């Protein structure tokens, strides 16, 4: 399978004051291929979020290289990073982070439009996603009118509406009960496989491991490959 996302000796250090810095990622090297669904596990402070942020072009690594579709990401160019996030990456955040002043449909549409999806195609995708996410009746509702599970499903739809080749999810089930959590996770995995996208899910919930085909364990800023 062709590699979509490659990390080559990626390091990240944060300044801890008085001129000192603390490295939280110690030379991460991983390759993620098309259709791979990866669960990223690890205790708090192990560097999961930092790695996810670098993979999502939100955080600049101190050193090392990130390649997306065999192209080295230029972290010095804001335009390049924005373009990558706009067209290639879909995010699902722990707290959904829906835009509260837009309806469910508008939350999806605004991301689709920004990614350059044609209006007719966008309308088709939104309808299909709302159906898939069982949110048809909530299309015109605002996030404040939805349950936590519904909100997270909308966030899922928003991450998928522009058919990204990389989907990054940070604790997408943390605020959900087990049933809703598994629904959201399964939807993510199924859709990622349909799209042939790379899916990286950060979670603490080890019960979800069997659903993924690759497990990465983070410890003290290093990735340890494990299988299940």
């Amino acid at each position, binding site marked *: 399978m062709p590699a979509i996302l490659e990390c080559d000796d990626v390091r990240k250090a944060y300044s801890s004051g008085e001129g000192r810095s603390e490295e939280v990622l110690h030379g991460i090297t991983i390759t993620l291929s098309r259709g791979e669904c990866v669960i990223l596990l690890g205790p708090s402070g192990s560097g999961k979020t930092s790695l996810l*942020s670098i993979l999502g072009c939100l955080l600049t690594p101190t050193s090392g290289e990130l390649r997306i579709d065999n192209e080295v990401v230029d972290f010095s160019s804001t335009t390049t990073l924005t373009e990558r996030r706009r067209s290639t990456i879909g995010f699902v955040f722990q707290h959904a982070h829906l835009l509260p002043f837009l309806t469910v449909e508008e939350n999806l549409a605004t991301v689709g439009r920004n990614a350059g999806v044609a209006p007719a195609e966008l309308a088709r995708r939104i309808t299909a996603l709302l159906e898939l996410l069982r949110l048809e009746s909530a299309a015109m509702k605002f996030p404040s009118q939805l349950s936590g599970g519904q909100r997270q499903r909308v966030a899922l739809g928003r991450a998928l509406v522009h058919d990204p080749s990389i989907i990054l999810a940070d604790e997408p089930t943390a605020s959900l009960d087990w049933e809703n959590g598994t629904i959201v996770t399964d939807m993510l995995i199924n859709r990622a496989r349909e799209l042939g996208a790379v899916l990286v899910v950060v979670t603490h919930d080890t019960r979800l491991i069997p659903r993924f085909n690759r497990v990465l364990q983070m410890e003290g800023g290093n990735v340890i490959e494990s299988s299940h």
Partner: protein
Amino acid sequence: MPQAFREAAFLGKRMLLDKPGRFFATVIGVGIAFFLATAQFGLLVGWINTNTALIRHSGADLWVMAVQAPAFDYGTAIPRQRLYQARSIEGVEWTQPVFMGWNIWQRGDGRRVNIELVGVDRMYAAGPWMMSSGSLESIRRPNTVVVDQLYLKTLGIGRLGESFEMIGERATIGGICRGIRTFTASPFVFTSVEQAIRYDKRYRDDEITYAVAGCQPGVPVGVVQARMQRAMANVEVLTTQQFCVRSAKYWMLETGVGITVVITAFLGLAVATVITSQTLFAITHDHLPNYATLLALGFSRNTLLSIVLVQSVVLGACGIALGTLLFGSAAWASVRTPIPLETTPLVFALLVIGSFATSLLASLMSARAVFRVDPITVFR
């Protein structure tokens, strides 16, 4: 319009309307501030129009007057001979005498009112240009005057033909004109030059206040003005435009009235800036997590700045629209009052531009906040 800006416009408007109460309160605040500014400038324009109205409507091209007469209302006597001299200047088509003097009007109830007595000749230059009742020609009759309908109550006038007193002389109302306000609170009373001199004991028969002249068609006014000035000593010759500017400058600048009004107008714009700035910043601050989300989802910082820009323009435009409505209503209501609110297309356009500029200025703080948003906060 590029897609990014269309998206910014959509998001900006929806963010603004997220809390309709705050949006409408801001629009009302900006609207009132804009109204305050336009009303102040409206007063200024109205006052300038008021204190130059008789000059502008005179139909004359040139005014001959005593040296350094500060305004129409404060002209002093010049020899009537100047009128004939002016008429003899090459390029002059006609001349007319004008009298202007302060006098005392005695009402029927005995109360005395200061008035500005204007004497005009057969062409009625510097006289009323709109009559409400009676006739302007009536001033050719002895002891007959024309007054403006705005001041009937002030002068204690009930009807045409009623008689009053001016320093022992009878004054009968021969006509009522309209649209001639006074800036000095002393109403204008019109009569013939000869009658005015009879009313004003300080003038001799061979004295007038102004000699006004019309130039022959095609002859440059400036050329005639220069010829006239060379030919006559101890008088000043001004074009109608120059005399208007001098009168307006006197009342607006030398008395300090204009400066006060202009300062208040700028205060209005400053208030609008503060209101817009504070509200916009409050809205931006409330939505900082949403800006971070938008950045993380691939919206550019330019799009985010456009959102702030759109919001400031929308607030400014809505405020200006409301302010214009208020000003229009106030101007309409002031038409028949001694204190008119007026404007000119140029003044209004400048105020609108100024208000938009202040709205944009108000967005600077918000733009700065948006510029500092870190998208990584979405993971916290």
